[in-house]
């Protein structure tokens, strides 16, 4: 019987390949969250990283939907992922409807968005916790322990991916690295907005435009995003031509 096993193997092969190949952190983490969602058969996955203030910020998510993103972003102040980050332990809530007292605001928003259960897995680096992987399902229930173990392994792979980036620097502290990663994410969001407006598409479609262009022109997603935002690269005009009626100073 073809259970999830073949796709779990495929997922790890794919991620490992990406890690050793021409590495693009943002693309990698996006890939990881979408594969995680598919492989574990959950409904939404978010990867959150610690900022400098003891809170969490979204670094990657399997869905562009505003409501889902908002749910991840809410956990800057309250929620299972924040608890997971603070304790360093996995946190599960198999039935949000019965636990509204634990995270009042988060639970309300999650139920409103159609989610019934949530699981948070810590991203650990030795004694530090740097963030969390958040899984949402629309039906209540616990996750198979084997699948949870796969989820934890994916969280660990994400951590490895982040460390991969820091190989270059002489004295790169973890806090700086996380801040840099989060800024990378924001640069992509800025580029998505620009492209969405220029090409008259949704921001989700704009992201796909960016990814496709990055792949076909062998450029890092982040470098491309920065070029779009700072108008540094004339060839990026191929991505989405600027309409003539809005000349940029």
């Amino acid at each position, binding site marked *: 019987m073809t259970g999830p096993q073949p796709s779990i193997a495929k997922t790890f092969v794919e991620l490992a390949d990406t890690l050793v190949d021409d590495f693009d952190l943002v693309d990698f983490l996006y890939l990881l969250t979408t594969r995680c969602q598919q492989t574990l058969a959950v409904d939404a996955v978010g990867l959150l990283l610690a900022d400098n203030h003891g809170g969490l910020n979204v670094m990657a998510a399997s869905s562009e939907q505003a*409501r889902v993103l908002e749910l991840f972003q809410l956990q800057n102040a309250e929620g299972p992922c924040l608890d997971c980050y603070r304790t360093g332990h996995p946190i599960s809530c198999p039935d949000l409807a019965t636990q509204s007292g634990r995270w009042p605001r988060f639970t309300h928003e999650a139920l409103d968005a159609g989610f019934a259960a949530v699981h948070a897995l810590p991203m650990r680096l030795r004694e530090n916790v740097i963030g969390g992987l958040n899984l949402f399902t629309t039906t209540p229930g616990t996750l198979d322990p084997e699948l949870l173990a796969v989820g934890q392994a994916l969280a660990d792979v994400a951590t490895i991916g982040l460390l991969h980036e820091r190989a270059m620097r002489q004295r790169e502290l973890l806090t700086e690295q996380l801040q840099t990663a989060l800024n990378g994410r*924001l640069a992509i969001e800025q580029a998505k907005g620009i492209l969405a*407006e220029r090409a008259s598409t949704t921001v989700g479609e704009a992201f796909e435009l960016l990814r496709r262009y990055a792949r076909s022109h062998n450029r890092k997603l982040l470098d491309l995003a920065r070029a779009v935002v700072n108008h540094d690269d004339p060839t990026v005009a191929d991505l989405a031509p600027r309409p003539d009626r809005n000349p940029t100073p």
Partner: protein
Amino acid sequence: MLASNLDALEPVCITDSRAGEVEELQATVGQGPGIDALMSGTPTLVDDLASPVSARRWPVFAPEAPRLGVRAMYSLPLALGALRVGVLDLYRDAPGELSQEQLMDALAYADTALLLVLDARSGIASPPDPRAGGNGGPTLWHAEVHQAAGMVSVQLGIPVLDALVRLRGHAYRHDERLADVARSVVERRLRFDPGDGEPATNHDQKKGQS
């Protein structure tokens, strides 16, 4: 130090004359840890400006700074995504490392400095705790705020940082949350057009589809 581009570096807030002289030096020679931090978007922490490593890296700036009384320098970029807002330069008159704790504090100061700079540009009077309220703190890191800034920058033909400033100013003046204004822009219910006094709304819907 504030900059919209490398040609327009200007020291904004100086604590003593030594710091002022070093900032001046950096801007004049066009090299230094602060400039590196600004351009790369990552912190540049220099334990000893008199070391050979520093001399190789900043051949004009590094030997000169200790003569002005500065031996160590820690530069933290004020950045939001791809936007380079400025740099926070911290100095020491003796060589040494920033402890982990000091670095954490410095990074927190940098975030606050960033908010204050944005407030000033938006025409917002900074609240006593810039991290409180709906227009600073975590919201500034929300995906939709930056998507909206990108969109508005194209709508108005202005740099993305200016668009972000406009969004914050708009939210403040209309007593709305920045997150809600951003959501309206991204869902195309709110548009900023050049030449209009006020941005245009498509219809009165409060909640869009998602």
